[in-house]
C-alpha cells in the first residue's frame, strides 16, 4: 500500500481512538500492563549487570589494584578479573620449583609484594574469621573485616551509608543486616566472643553494594582480625567457598601505586608467578586480548540444556501471554470495527478497496498498540526508578547504573505493538469482507461460519488428539527420558505437539460452536435467548473472548488433572519405611555423642513419648573386621528390612506392634518376626558373614565364610510391620550368642508428627552435635507441591473473569440501541443486568467447558506416557473436580454476578429514538 492511504487510515484510526475513549483505554491498558512488567524486569536485569568500571569500583574502591596471596609457592593463572576464578599450578613433577615459586614459598607475602611493587602502599583487605557478637537478641554470627573507613580508598567498595567512620580506638562499623539481627543501634556497644574485654562502639553503618544482606562487623585495622585469630581455637576455620571479592581467608591488600604508574597485564602476570592474584584497575578497564590470557574460565556449569529449557519455558509463557492479550483485546477491535462499519463502508463507497478498509482497523491496532507500548515502557521505567531502593534491597545488591537499554525496550514495545496488531487482524479481515451496502444500510447479515475453517478445526482437533494419545499408546518406552529438544523427550514432545494441534482445532471450531449455541437459543426464555443470539451474531467479539478463556482453562485443567492423577498413583504405591508419624534418628557408626543427640532431639521436639533405642547385631571375625548380622531368607534384607536389636519399646515405636505375648517372648530371649516365611521350622536363622575363605582369584567368584545360627522365634503376622524390618531380637540374646551390638539410632512414635519447622530445628541441632546423625519423620505420602496448579487455576480464573467481563462490557456498549428499544417496549429496569449477567456467564461457561475438554488431552496422554515409562498398569485418572468446578461453574457464576452488579440498571433511553 502506498503511504497516502496509510496516512488516511492512521488519521481515521487516531480520531476513532479519541472518540471511543473507554474502549481505547481498555486496549491500551491490556497492552501496556504486560509491556510494563517485561520492560521493568529488563531494566532491573540490565541495571544489575555491571560495566567493568562499576565492577572495578566495587572491588577496588579508590585503589589501583586488589592483590591476594592466592597460593604462595605456586604459579597462578588468572583472567583480567581475578575474582572470576584463578588456577594455582604447583611445582611440576620431576621439575624443581621456579625461582619465583621458591622465592614466594616461605616469604612474608606483604614484604614480597612491597618488594615486587616498589613504592606501592598496601592496605589490608582480607576478611577475617566468623565471630559471634553479643547483642540484646543473644549471640549474632557475623563476618569480620578491617578497614580504615576514614580513608577515601574504601569508597565504592565499602560504602558508609549512615553515622560516621570509626576513627578512635575500638570503634567499629557494621552492616544494616547486622543491626537488624542483633537489635543494636548506632552508638551502642557490642563485644566479640573471645574479645570480651574490649567492647566496640558502633559508629557507622556500611554496606557492600553487591551484597546488601551481608552480616559484617568492620573494625579498624589491627583491632579485630589479629586479636580474634589469637583467641580462636584451632578447629575454627575461616569461611570457605569462592568469594567474588577478595578470596576469604587469604591475605589481600588494596594497593595504591605511586603517581603516574599503573599495574598492567604484564605486571599482573609477574605477580601470578609469585602465587599472587591481582585485579588491576588499568587491566580491568583495558583488558588484554584473549590470546594473552592463558587462564580459561572452566565452565563447570553444565547448564546449557537447562538454559534452553528455561528459554523454552520463558518463550512459551511469553507466547501464551501474547496470545492471551491478543485474544482479550480482539473483541475491543471487533466492536470498534462494527460501530464504525458505516464509516468503513463509506470508505469503500468512496473507492477504497478491501486493503484500505482493513488498514483502518489495523491502524487502530497500530495506534492503540503504540500508545499502549509507549505507556507501558514509560510506566515500567518510572516504576523501577521509584521503587529502586526497594528492588535493590530485595535483590541484595545495588544497581551499577540505571540500565535503560534502548534496543531491549524498543523490542519489548515492538512486541506490544505486534500484539495489538494481532488482536486487530481478525476484525480487520471481517470488516474488509463486509459488503459496502450492508455497511451503509447498517445491516448485519449473519453469515454462517466458514465451512473450510470448520472442517480444518475438526481435522486439527481429531488428528491432534489422536497423535497425542496414540503416539503414547504405541510407544514401547524406548527413547524415554532422552532429551531431543529443550530437555524434553520424544514422547513428551509428541504429546505437546498433538495437544497444541488439538487446541488450535478447538480454536478454529469456536465460531461454529457459538453459532450452534445460538441455534439452541429458541428453547430458552427471553433473557437467555437474547443473550445467546447476541453472542452468536457477534462472533467477532465473542469468539476471541471464549478462546482466551479456553486457553487458560485448558492449561489449568491439564496440570490439575496430571498432578491429581500422578499424586493418586504415587499415594497408592507409596510404602512408608516406618510407622506413620514416627521420628527416627539414625547414625552410621557408634559415637559418644549419641546420648547427647537423643537428649537434644527430645528437648527440641517435646511430647515425643517413649523412646526406643535401636542397635544392630554385629559379627566380628577378627580384631579389625566385622559385618552386620542378617536374617536368612530375607530377600530385601538391606536397610530397613534388617534385624533390629532392641526391647519392647522397639516393637511399639519402630513397628507399631503392641502384643503382650510377643513382648514376653522377646524378654524371654526369643526373636519376634512379622513374616512366617522367614522361619525355618520354628527357628529364625541368623547369617554371620565372615571373611573370604581363600584369597580372591581373578575370574572366580570369591567365596565368603558364612555361618548360620538358628534362634527361637515367635511370629506376629503383620505385613505392614514386615515392611519396616525383618524382626526384633533382644540384646542379651545377641550377646549370649557371642555377638556384639552397635547402637544404630532411636525411634519415637508420637501421636502426631512434629511440625516441619521444629523438625528442621532439631535436625540442625543433631547435625551440629553429630554430623552423621540423620533425623527423619515419616509423614506418610506427601502430595507434590500444588503451587503450580494453584497458580495456574488462579490465572485461569482471572482470565475467565477478565475475558468474560470485558466481552460483556463491550457487548453492552455495542447493544445500547437494542436495550433502549427493550426499555421502550416495556422491559423492566433490571433486564440490562439480566442480559449482561447471562452473556458474561455464557462466555465463561462455554470457554471453560471447551478448555476443560482440551485440558484432558495432554493430561491423559502424559499419564499414559508415564505408565509406559514406569511399565505400570494404566493410571487411575483422578479428575480434579475442585479445580474444574471452580473454573467451569464457580468462576462463570461469579463473572455473571459481577456483570449483574456492575451493569447500570437504568436503561439508556436515548433522547431521540427515532
Amino acid at each position, binding site marked *: 500500500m502506498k503511504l497516502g492511504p496509510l496516512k488516511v487510515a492512521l488519521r481515521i484510526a487516531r480520531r476513532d481512538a479519541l472518540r471511543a475513549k473507554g474502549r481505547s483505554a481498555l486496549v491500551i491498558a491490556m497492552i501496556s500492563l504486560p509491556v510494563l512488567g517485561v520492560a521493568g524486569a529488563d531494566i532491573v536485569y540490565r541495571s544489575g549487570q555491571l560495566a567493568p568500571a562499576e565492577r572495578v569500583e566495587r572491588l577496588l574502591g579508590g585503589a589501583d589494584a586488589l592483590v591476594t596471596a592466592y597460593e604462595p609457592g605456586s604459579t597462578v593463572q588468572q583472567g583480567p578479573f581475578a575474582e572470576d576464578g584463578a588456577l594455582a599450578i604447583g611445582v611440576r613433577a620431576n621439575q624443581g620449583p621456579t625461582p619465583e615459586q621458591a622465592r614466594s614459598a616461605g616469604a612474608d607475602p606483604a614484604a614480597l609484594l612491597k618488594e615486587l611493587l616498589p613504592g606501592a602502599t598496601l592496605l589490608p583487605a582480607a576478611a577475617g574469621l566468623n565471630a559471634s557478637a553479643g547483642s540484646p537478641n543473644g549471640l549474632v554470627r557475623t563476618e569480620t573485616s578491617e578497614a580504615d573507613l576514614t580513608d577515601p580508598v574504601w569508597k565504592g567498595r565499602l560504602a558508609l551509608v549512615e553515622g560516621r567512620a570509626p576513627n578512635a580506638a575500638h570503634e567499629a562499623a557494621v552492616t544494616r543486616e547486622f543491626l537488624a539481627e542483633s537489635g543494636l543501634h548506632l552508638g551502642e556497644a557490642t563485644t566479640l566472643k573471645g574479645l570480651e574485654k574490649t567492647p566496640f562502639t558502633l559508629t557507622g553503618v556500611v554496606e557492600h553494594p553487591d551484597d546488601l544482606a551481608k552480616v559484617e562487623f568492620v573494625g579498624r585495622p589491627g583491632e579485630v582480625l589479629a586479636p580474634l585469630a589469637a583467641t580462636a581455637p584451632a578447629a575454627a576455620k575461616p569461611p570457605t567457598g569462592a568469594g567474588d571479592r577478595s578470596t576469604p581467608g587469604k591475605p589481600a591488600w588494596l594497593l595504591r601505586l605511586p603517581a603516574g604508574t599503573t599495574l598492567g597485564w604484564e605486571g599482573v602476570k609477574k605477580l601470578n608467578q609469585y602465587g599472587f592474584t591481582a585485579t588491576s584497575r588499568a587491566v580491568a578497564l583495558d583488558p588484554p586480548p584473549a590470546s594473552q590470557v592463558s587462564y580459561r574460565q572452566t565452565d563447570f556449569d553444565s547448564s546449557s540444556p537447562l538454559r534452553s529449557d528455561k528459554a523454552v519455558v520463558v518463550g512459551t509463557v511469553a507466547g501464551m501471554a501474547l496470545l492471551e492479550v491478543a485474544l482479550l483485546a480482539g473483541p475491543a477491535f471487533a466492536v470498534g470495527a462494527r460501530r464504525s462499519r458505516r464509516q468503513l463502508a463509506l470508505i469503500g463507497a468512496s473507492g477504497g478497496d478491501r486493503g484500505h478498509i482493513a488498514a483502518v482497523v489495523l491502524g487502530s491496532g497500530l495506534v492503540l498498540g503504540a500508545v499502549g507500548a509507549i505507556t507501558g515502557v514509560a510506566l515500567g521505567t518510572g516504576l523501577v526508578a521509584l521503587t529502586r531502593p526497594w528492588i535493590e534491597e530485595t535483590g541484595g545488591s545495588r544497581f551499577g547504573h540505571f540500565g535503560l537499554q534502548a534496543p531491549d525496550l524498543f523490542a519489548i514495545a515492538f512486541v506490544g505493538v505486534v500484539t495489538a496488531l494481532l488482536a486487530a487482524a481478525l476484525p480487520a479481515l471481517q470488516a474488509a469482507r463486509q459488503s459496502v451496502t450492508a455497511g451503509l444500510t447498517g445491516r448485519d447479515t449473519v453469515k454462517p461460519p466458514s465451512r473450510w475453517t470448520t472442517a480444518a478445526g475438526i481435522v486439527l482437533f481429531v488428528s491432534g488428539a489422536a497423535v497425542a494419545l496414540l503416539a503414547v499408546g504405541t510407544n514401547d518406552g524406548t527413547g524415554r527420558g532422552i532429551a531431543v529438544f529443550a530437555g524434553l523427550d520424544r514422547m513428551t514432545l509428541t504429546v505437546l505437539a498433538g495437544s497444541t494441534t488439538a487446541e488450535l482445532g478447538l480454536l478454529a471450531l469456536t465460531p461454529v460452536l457459538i453459532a450452534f449455541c445460538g441455534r439452541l437459543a429458541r428453547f430458552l426464555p427471553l433473557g437467555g435467548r437474547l443473550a445467546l443470539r447476541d453472542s452468536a451474531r457477534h462472533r467477532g467479539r465473542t469468539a476471541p473472548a471464549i478462546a482466551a478463556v479456553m486457553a487458560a482453562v485448558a492449561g489449568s485443567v491439564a496440570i490439575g488433572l496430571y498432578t491429581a492423577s500422578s499424586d493418586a498413583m504415587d499415594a497408592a504405591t507409596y510404602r512408608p519405611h516406618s510407622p506413620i508419624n514416627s521420628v527416627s534418628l539414625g547414625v552410621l557408626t557408634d559415637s559418644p555423642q549419641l546420648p547427647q543427640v537423643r537428649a537434644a532431639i527430645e528437648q527440641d521436639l517435646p511430647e515425643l513419648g517413649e523412646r526406643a533405642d535401636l542397635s544392630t547385631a554385629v559379627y566380628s571375625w577378627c580384631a579389625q573386621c566385622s559385618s552386620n548380622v542378617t536374617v536368612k531368607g530375607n530377600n530385601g534384607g538391606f536397610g530397613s528390612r534388617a534385624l533390629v536389636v532392641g526391647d519392647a519399646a522397639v516393637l511399639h515405636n519402630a513397628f507399631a506392634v503392641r502384643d503382650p505375648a510377643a513382648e514376653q517372648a522377646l524378654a524371654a530371649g526369643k526373636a519376634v518376626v512379622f513374616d512366617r516365611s522367614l522361619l525355618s521350622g520354628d527357628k529364625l536363622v541368623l547369617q554371620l558373614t565372615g571373611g573370604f575363605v581363600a584369597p580372591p582369584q581373578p575370574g572366580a567368584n570369591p567365596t565368603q565364610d558364612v555361618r548360620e545360627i538358628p534362634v527361637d522365634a515367635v511370629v506376629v503376622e503383620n505385613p505392614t510391620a514386615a515392611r519396616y524390618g525383618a524382626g526384633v531380637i533382644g540384646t542379651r540374646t545377641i550377646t549370649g550368642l557371642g555377638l556384639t551390638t552397635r547402637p544404630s539410632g532411636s525411634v519415637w512414635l508420637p501421636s502426631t508428627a512434629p511440625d516441619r519447622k521444629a523438625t528442621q530445628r532439631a535436625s540442625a541441632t543433631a547435625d551440629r552435635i553429630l554430623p552423621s546423625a540423620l533425623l527423619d519423620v515419616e509423614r506418610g505420602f506427601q502430595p507434590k507441591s500444588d503451587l503450580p496448579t494453584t497458580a495456574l487455576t488462579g490465572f485461569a480464573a482471572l482470565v475467565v473473569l477478565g475475558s468474560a467481563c470485558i466481552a460483556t462490557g463491550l457487548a453492552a456498549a455495542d447493544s445500547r440501541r437494542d436495550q433502549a428499544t427493550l426499555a*421502550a417496549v416495556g422491559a423492566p429496569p433490571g433486564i440490562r443486568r439480566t442480559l449482561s449477567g447471562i452473556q458474561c456467564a455464557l462466555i465463561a461457561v462455554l470457554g471453560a467447558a471447551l478448555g476443560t475438554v482440551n485440558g484432558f488431552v495432554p493430561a491423559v496422554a502424559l499419564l499414559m506416557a508415564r505408565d509406559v515409562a514406569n511399565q505400570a498398569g494404566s493410571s487411575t485418572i483422578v479428575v480434579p473436580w475442585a479445580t474444574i468446578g471452580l473454573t467451569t461453574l464457580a468462576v462463570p457464576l461469579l463473572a455473571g454476578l459481577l456483570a449483574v452488579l456492575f451493569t447500570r440498571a437504568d436503561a439508556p433511553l436515548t433522547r*431521540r429514538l427515532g
Partner: protein
Amino acid sequence: MSKSSPSRNGTGPVLHLDHVTRVHGRGAAEVHALRGVDLRVQAGEFVAVMGPSGSGKSTLLTLAGGLDAPTTGQVLVEGVALGGLSRKKLAAARRRSIGYVFQDYNLIPALTAAENIALPRELDGVSGRVTRREALAALEELGIPELAGRYPDDMSGGQQQRVAIARALVGDRRLVLADEPTGALDSTNGEAVLGVLRARCDAGAAAMMVTHEPRHASWADRVVFLRDGLIVDEGFGRSAESLQTMAARHGNRIEATG
C-alpha cells in the same frame, strides 16, 4: 374495549398532557423543547402532529410514551400520571397500555419478526404459546404472515416497519404512538399501515402520529400543529389540501422530526 369506556375510570381521555414543558440542557445550552402543551386524546381518536423541524413533535411523543419525563406539568395515560409511577410500574405501563412505533423501527436484531412482536407480551409474563399466537395474528392482520421466522436484517425497510407496528398493536394496547410510521414505505404500503392504525382507533384505541405528510395526516380525526414548543393550531377532519395550506402557514418547511 369500546369507545364508551375511554379510560380506566371510564370518563377521561386515554392520553392527557397537562401543561407540559420540557427543557433540555442548562444555562446557555438550555433548549425549551415544549413550552406548556395541553392536549387530550380520547378513546377512538386518531390525532396527527405536524410542525416544522425543532417544533417539539418527537419530544411530545416520547413524553406521551413515558420514555422521557416532563420538566413541569404531567402526562396521564388512562388517567394515571406517569410521573408518579415507579420505574417498574412505568415499564409495565409501556408494555401494557402504550404501543410505540419508531421512525427507524428499532427491532431487536437478535429476535425473529414473531419474537419481536411478542416481546412486550413475553416481558409481561404471558406464556410463549399465547404470545406466539398473538404475534402470528398481528402479522396476519398486517398481511405479512410469511415474515414470522425472519430476522430484521433479512427484511426490507417496509417489512420491518410493519413488524414494528404489529409490535405496537399486540396485546390490546389503548394508546398507540407512532413517529413517522410511513417514512420508509411506498405509498401503497404506507396507506395500508395508516389503515391499520385507523382500524385500531375505530376499535376503541387512541393514536397519536407524528408526520410531515399532509396526505397521511388526513387519515387522522384531528391534526395538531406545533411550533416552538407550543400548539399553535388544530384542524378537524381536514382534507390533504387544506392541511397542506395550514402546514405552509405554520412553518416554511415541515419535516419528519422536530
